[in-house]
């Protein structure tokens, strides 16, 4: 079975500082990995994904994530945080080798607060 862990419920960072939101995963094969962001009372917004190739993936709004196969991690990063980045962040995984199964498995979410 596939699973995702986001070990931090809450991350606080000062504006202008780098931010990291952690994610580790477990799948039987090579994973498809995703990050989504959710603002209050809104749907999930796609940020970036790793499918194959370069381990460093760049996405929307200056976010990037690094796939680390040996550590089974896919941490989300941004060099300089903005107050507007404050939101709920979800990591998700899909095992592409699970036949016709399409479901994403989401982590529990990390609330990011960027302090002015």
């Amino acid at each position, binding site marked *: 079975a596939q699973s995702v862990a986001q070990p931090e419920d809450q991350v606080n960072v000062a504006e202008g500082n780098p931010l990291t939101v952690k994610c580790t995963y477990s799948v039987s094969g090579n994973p498809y990995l*995703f990050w989504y962001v959710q603002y209050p009372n809104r*749907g*999930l917004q796609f940020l970036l994904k790793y499918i194959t190739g370069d381990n460093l993936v760049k996405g929307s709004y200056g976010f990037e994530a690094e796939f680390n196969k040996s550590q089974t991690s896919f941490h989300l990063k941004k060099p300089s945080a903005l107050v507007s980045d404050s939101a709920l962040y979800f990591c998700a995984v899909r095992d*592409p080798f699970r036949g016709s199964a*399409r479901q994403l498995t*989401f982590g529990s979410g990390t609330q990011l607060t960027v302090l002015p």
Partner: protein
Amino acid sequence: DAMVIQNPRYQVTQFGKPVTLSCSQTLNHNVMYWYQQKSSQAPKLLFHYYDKDFNNEADTPDNFQSRRPNTSFCFLDIRSPGLGDAAMYLCATSRTGEQETQYFGPGTRLLVL
């Protein structure tokens, strides 16, 4: 812009009174999903349509049903809402062959009185 649209954004219903939530998409995606999300928890997949094929999750209550009359529209029917069904309901779409990246609508927040 191509997008996933959900109506209404907020829905208030009474305990036991049937309610229907709607989702439409202009992305021409062949897969559509319905999720339930409570209190900033992870979204929970209820079911999905792969083209016309309906796929129900094993733990989705019978109280939840879905219809997909055509590629663009999908409906979530809650036959007898209980207080525990108050949640955000999210619709998402994806296209086969694009690593199934899912794109979400803004959600409908359901309140059950």
